[in-house]
């Protein structure tokens, strides 16, 4: 096919083509349960249910980041060891035999979550634990746990605030790390969590309004605790019954319309205003844009003009030998010029940390010394006679000990950093 560039093309056509252009090519899911302990069984079940759903609809494990802070399947209180159920009919074992938990136990922290979203991770972090998205990625973010007004608890130890998530999304937008995001959260006062978002192309939905609790759906008498939350339950019910395969044409609007306040026992919230085109555009987006992945294959035509032949390859092989060495050398040079900086920088920060620590301990030592000296000075003043000399040596000795201390700590910590 010959490409001709027409000088007199209608500008409107160009604009239309440019607008229609943006399209996502890959789907990611970040599923986060944030609570520990057996009585929070349902939060793990919520997360695993979503994992099961997105996997069923075609998102591969490599594109799902699953964060589970506690291992319910192996909890000694679990009367069905090795399984996690989200329903008291116990028909579907969510734990199954093919599950990939990316962050587990104490790895599930606010810091790790933010590092994951912004991809500021250690260079040795395995790729399966990273969110390797680009400007063509649609991301489904699901969070569940205990929360309150503008915060969500992680592991009963720390909190992530609405500002933190909004900042993380802003950073992702700044680096073009997403195309669209569907943010779904099931926690008490969940709707407050997405109020601080400011980046475009995010649809957000939550289980309950400010000052409103989210409730669990039902308990399993044999497991002994609630197994799923209401909001998640009705989302899943819709996804399981209506979105039966990857060719589903249902939209986000259809899902949101299925929310029934009477059933959920709280007022679910939906935020559309960040999407270009507003509510209508957001509602018309396909559910499969977020909950699944459809590989769009490009079938090879039988006679491809641009396909390579063996003569092309042979010609390349002949042309290359003289060029190869130089190019490989260049590639190596770039690697070398790039790398040494990182370790050097790291060492610098380490040594400065040690130095700071030493100064700090020295300061504490001094701070201890001054009142002691003053005190000693007072106690000696009334009796300036014979007792004066032996007493005044005491603070000196103290001071020496205080000064010795930081030195030892410095040696200790620099030894550690080396190890």
């Amino acid at each position, binding site marked *: 096919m010959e490409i001709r560039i027409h000088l007199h093309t209608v500008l409107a056509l160009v604009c239309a083509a440019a607008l229609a252009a943006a399209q996502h090519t890959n789907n990611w899911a970040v599923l986060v349960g944030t609570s520990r302990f057996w009585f929070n069984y349902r939060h793990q079940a919520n997360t695993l249910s979503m994992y099961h759903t997105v996997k069923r609809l*075609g998102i*591969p494990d490599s594109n799902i980041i699953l964060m589970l802070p506690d291992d319910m399947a192996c909890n000694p209180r679990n009367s069905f060891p090795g399984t996690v159920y989200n329903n008291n009919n116990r028909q579907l074992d969510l734990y199954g035999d093919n599950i990939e938990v990316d962050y587990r136990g104490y790895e599930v922290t606010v810091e790790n979550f933010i590092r994951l979203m912004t991809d*500021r991770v250690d260079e040795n972090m395995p790729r*399966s634990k990273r969110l390797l998205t680009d400007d063509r990625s649609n991301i489904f973010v699901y969070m569940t746990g205990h929360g309150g007004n503008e915060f969500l608890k992680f592991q009963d130890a720390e909190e992530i605030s609405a500002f933190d998530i909004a900042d993380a999304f802003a950073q992702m937008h700044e680096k073009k790390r997403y195309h669209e995001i569907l943010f779904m959260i099931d926690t008490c006062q969940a709707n407050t969590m997405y109020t601080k978002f400011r980046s475009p192309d995010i649809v957000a939905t939550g289980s309950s309004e400010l000052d409103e609790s989210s409730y669990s759906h039902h308990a399993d008498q044999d497991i002994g605790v609630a197994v799923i939350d209401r909001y998640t339950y009705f989302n899943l019910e819709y996804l399981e019954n209506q979105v039966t395969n990857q060719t589903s044409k249902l939209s986000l609007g259809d899902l949101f319309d299925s929310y029934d306040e009477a059933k959920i026992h709280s007022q679910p919230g939906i935020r559309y205003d960040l999407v270009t085109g507003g509510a209508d555009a957001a509602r018309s987006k396909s559910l499969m844009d977020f909950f699944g992945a459809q590989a769009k294959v490009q079938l090879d035509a039988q006679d491809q003009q*641009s396909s*390579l032949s063996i003569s092309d390859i042979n010609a390349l092989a002949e042309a290359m030998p003289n060029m190869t060495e130089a190019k490989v050398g260049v590639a190596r040079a770039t690697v070398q010029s790039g790398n040494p900086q990182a370790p050097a920088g790291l060492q610098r920060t380490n040594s400065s940390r040690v130095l700071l620590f030493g100064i700090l301990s020295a300061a504490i030592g001094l701070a201890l010394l001054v009142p002691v000296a003053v005190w000693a000075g007072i106690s000696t003043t009334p009796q300036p006679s014979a007792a004066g000399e032996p007493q005044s040596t005491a603070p000196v000795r103290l001071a020496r000990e205080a000064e010795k201390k930081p030195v030892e700590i410095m040696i200790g910590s620099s030894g550690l950093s080396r190890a």
Partner: protein
Amino acid sequence: MSPDRGDSPSAGPKGFGPAHIDSKKIVEAVKATRDPPPESQESIDSRRWIVLSFLLIVSLLGLPLWWKTTTVYRSDLPYQSMYHWDAGNACDPVFPLQVVLESPHVPVDQSQKLLNLAQRALDELNAFSAHHLRLVDSTQKSENTVLTVQLLPTDAAASPTAVLQPHATSLDIAFAPSLLPSSSATSSSLASFIADELHNTFLHEQATIAHMIASSPGSHPSSKPLSPEFLALLEDRKTRAMKYSPTYHLTFTLLTPTASPANWEIEAAVHSIINPLVRALSSVSTFTIDTQVQPYAIFSSSVHPVHNEAQSAWFLDQAELGAFINAAEWPLSPSIGEGNTINFLLYVPAPEQTPLYIVPSDATADASSQLHSWLLPQWGSAYILNLPPSALSTGTISAKDLEAPLLSFSTHLLALLGLPEEPHKSLPLRLASLRRTLTLSLLHSSASTLGALARLTQSLPSISIPKPAAASVAHTLSSLDQACAALKIGDFKEALVKAREADIEAERAFFDKSMVGQVYFPDEHKVAVYLPLLGPVAVPLILAFVKEAKAGVACLKALKGV
């Protein structure tokens, strides 16, 4: 101990007689005892020293320490030049392509004349100044030459013909010697023919670059509008191509639903077919090659091949191909290391399901079309290899049988790297064109990363900016400058090297792992943390200071009064 006080309780039991005198005395006595003994000057001084020393420690040592240890380290970033690059004002990328006119069989003065006329014709044709062709004679041939035009005078040819060499950067032009311009000619049909051919050869690349520059920030929307078909083609290519990565891992996987074949001569096949290609692409990225064999690999349950008796073949509907790759079961995302993995799947169907072909969605089953390979955008490609039973008997796929699949994979690899479709006749020219467009896109992406970093660090004051990040930013800026300078002189090799460096460093700066913002604390949280800690310490300290200050002021006043 005053004697009055000792007496007064003993006075009571002695007798209640003169009560009016006693009570007054007692009151006075009690009053008298409430006054502390006068302080010695010494103790007043020492108290002042104590209060002063505490104050000094807190203000000179404590506060600076607290300040020092709680401030986030933020290196200075060259914000101005970062924004400058991001806005597209720092560099106007230009692509002066040097084309050598080689004319060994033409007199020098005539070839020089032809060159001048062709150059003039080219300049008239060219509407986009950032990408232009510079014709030079063969004496100026250098490393930066992108194309050689061979002038071959033949008596046979009536009108000039042009042939683009498929395996070299060369355009052969055959023409009748009579077409050569005379020294006084102001126009020449041969010169305009050469100009036309050259212009068309680079038209696609020029349009691509024009589009990239027009869609980058800070561009002037002066260039002519492109046709919608061309934009759709660019969009297709962008959708198909992997996101650029300095390293790609090519993973070849042999999948069979049974135990056989469990062996393939992949090493030899890769050596002869993939290696030359990868070597030709070595300036673009580093490539590593891995292979794996996965027997008993069955595709997911939603894929159902249908047997067609009439054509004695099995058919797979195109709509089902999306689910063909069983991502849940097949080990296809190995965490090899830094860089993207490109997957190439070779599927050998079970003997009872051979041959297996694909039915396009808009066609009927037809074994003669033999469709058996497809590309997955930004992921990789797959190939169904239908082998005759004789080839399978040994349990090994020979290198010869692997040739066709690997050629298909090579084509897909180039498509996944975003190789331009034109000029489709010459692979070397397409590769060179890929390098140039990649250079430009790397320049754009690292500049926008710099802008993102600058905006981010300014919008989040609590985020730290470590020294390595600042160093990377400096490195990026210098690499960008060098790349821009290299482009100006047409040294595209150097420009690509520097653009890659800039991209790597910009990414490193942006994703520095110590640049994670502090978790947000509302102000009331800060008060709640500091108050219980500092309140009990601060109250006596401040009160003592106020008391001493008051005493000092009173003292001063008294002195003045005297």
